[in-house]
């Protein structure tokens, strides 16, 4: 009888798994799967939560995984929306023509240093020299005699591409420490004497110091007219013919409600406030009628 009992247990477990996994697919809810950029993830997660409260019957799943993953998954059709920090045109192995770009926010980035570094401003040229390894001591840029500890971002990450586009202008970066998350960089810069790295505006806090470049402050106001040069878009890519649910959600993301509240609350910059546009081939052009 004992083995009979086990048989029942086994069947029950299997049946249970089947029933549970069946629930997701058989329900009447429309589902939208979103994968990609970890920089955009908090915003999309928040917006998705609000959206699902208002729209019963839509099931939105938001996952990280990185911009490359987001783009390749949406290209394969594995997910509905792929989040990316970079233009699909700039990512190897992605056919941008097959995808539709939806820009949902703007992110500003700025160099940050350890609190003990007594400088507030740096020239673009010196910043470039630090990140290419030509300047290695803070005294060369008007600071104390202290070694500069460069903390770069992960190779191929969106933030690094944006930073290198503006600051390095094609020069090769110094081979240095690399960290892949804003949170870790924040902690390391905070704790390491003489450290410099770069972060999204939303990760500034009073434990670390952000630098202005050529006396331009890293603020949203300076980003919208391109006085502050280091910024990029957050993209939500879909296939050519996305599902209605996906389309509606992206519409919601770009709506005034989200752009004017959630976007700025979380430290991003509204896409509608921009007075300039950055094209996939890295040109900055003014938007007509935005002035």
């Amino acid at each position: 009888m004992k083995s009979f009992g086990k048989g029942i247990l086994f069947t029950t477990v299997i049946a249970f798994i089947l029933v549970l996994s069946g629930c997701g697919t058989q329900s009447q809810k429309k589902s939208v799967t979103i994968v990609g950029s970890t920089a955009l993830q908090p915003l999309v997660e928040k917006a998705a939560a609000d959206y699902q409260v208002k729209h019963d019957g839509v099931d939105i799943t938001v996952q990280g995984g990185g911009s490359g993953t987001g783009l390749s998954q949406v290209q394969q059709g594995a997910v509905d929306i792929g989040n990316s920090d970079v233009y699909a045109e700039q990512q190897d192995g992605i056919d941008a023509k097959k995808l539709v770009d939806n820009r949902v926010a703007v992110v500003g980035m700025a160099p940050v240093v350890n609190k003990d570094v007594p400088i507030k401003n740096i020239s673009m040229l010196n910043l470039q020299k630090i990140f290419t390894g030509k300047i290695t001591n803070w005294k060369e840029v008007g600071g104390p005699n202290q070694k500069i500890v460069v903390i770069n971002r992960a190779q191929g990450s969106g933030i690094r591409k944006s930073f290198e586009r503006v600051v390095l202008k094609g020069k090769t970066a110094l081979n240095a420490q690399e960290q892949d998350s804003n949170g870790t960089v924040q902690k390391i810069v905070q704790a390491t004497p003489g450290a410099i790295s770069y972060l999204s505006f939303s990760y500034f806090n009073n434990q670390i110091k952000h630098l202005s470049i050529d006396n331009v402050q890293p603020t949203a106001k300076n980003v919208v007219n391109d006085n502050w040069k280091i910024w990029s878009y957050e993209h939500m890519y879909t296939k050519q013919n996305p599902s209605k649910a996906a389309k509606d959600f992206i519409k919601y993301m770009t709506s005034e409600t989200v752009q004017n509240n959630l976007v700025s609350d979380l430290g991003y910059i509204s896409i509608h406030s921009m007075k300039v546009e950055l094209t996939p081939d890295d040109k900055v052009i003014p938007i007509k009628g935005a002035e």
Partner: protein
Amino acid sequence: MDAVKTELMKKSKASRQDQRGKLISLFCIFLIMLVVLSILYMITSKGLATFFENKMSFTDFFTKKVWNPSAKPQPLVGALPMIVGSFGVTVLSAILAAPFAIATAVFMTDISGKRGQAILQPVIELLVGIPSVVYGFIGLTVVVPFTRAVFGGTGFGILSGTFVLFVMVLPTVTSMYVDSLKAVPRFYREASLALGATRWQTIYKVIIRASIPGLLTAIIFGMARAFGEALAVQMVIGNASILPQDLVSPASTLTSVLTTGIGNTVLGTLPNNALWSLALVLLLMSLVFNLLTRFIGKKGAF
């Protein structure tokens, strides 16, 4: 007569159970084999694509020092710094953990008796259950500043990685070594004591000597764990793909480069394939570790 015959020809309940059990086991084994084989196939085909599809040089991969697979026009896939980094943290943490593991295990089996083991066993097992991000975070906030203050440098590097991994492999090595110490026959101890050896002499000259194959197996298992650990090491080693010159300058491991890079690359491109090649190296190394334990296990006394 016929009734007996049919009764005999019919399968008994026990034999039917036997068959059913066999079928279920076979099914499970087949499923596991399928999973393992498909993972092997995936990693191998992707990992080898770097060399066959993208025509990168095999020797460059193992000997060159610059890692920049997305560089244009000439991508650079020199994995030597990562390989050295991985072996560095693995070997050092195993060396550091071994004496502690030996002492703890001997204490649990031969010195403290039942009570010591009752307390230490859960403590050791608890260490295994702590998620690696917790180790990484403690490493980042405690070990890195400590290394910076005591040994200089930025604090990020192989040394910090070693300290973090030391704590992470200690429970593995200890609990495996406890098992092999328990397997040392009781009469070894009795004979040694009967010959007039002290407890220390018995432990040192008999028990530890007799359990050396078990100790080596335990250490290699610990090394396999250290070699494959990604997150915690990634947080403290600095992730600079530079060939390490000393223990306190930023370095990188195979896993740390793999985890930071995989999300930013697209399947099927060289930067992605190059990362799969790193995964292939990891896989082959864990295979080597496995074979080593088998080899040592065969030589064991019991």
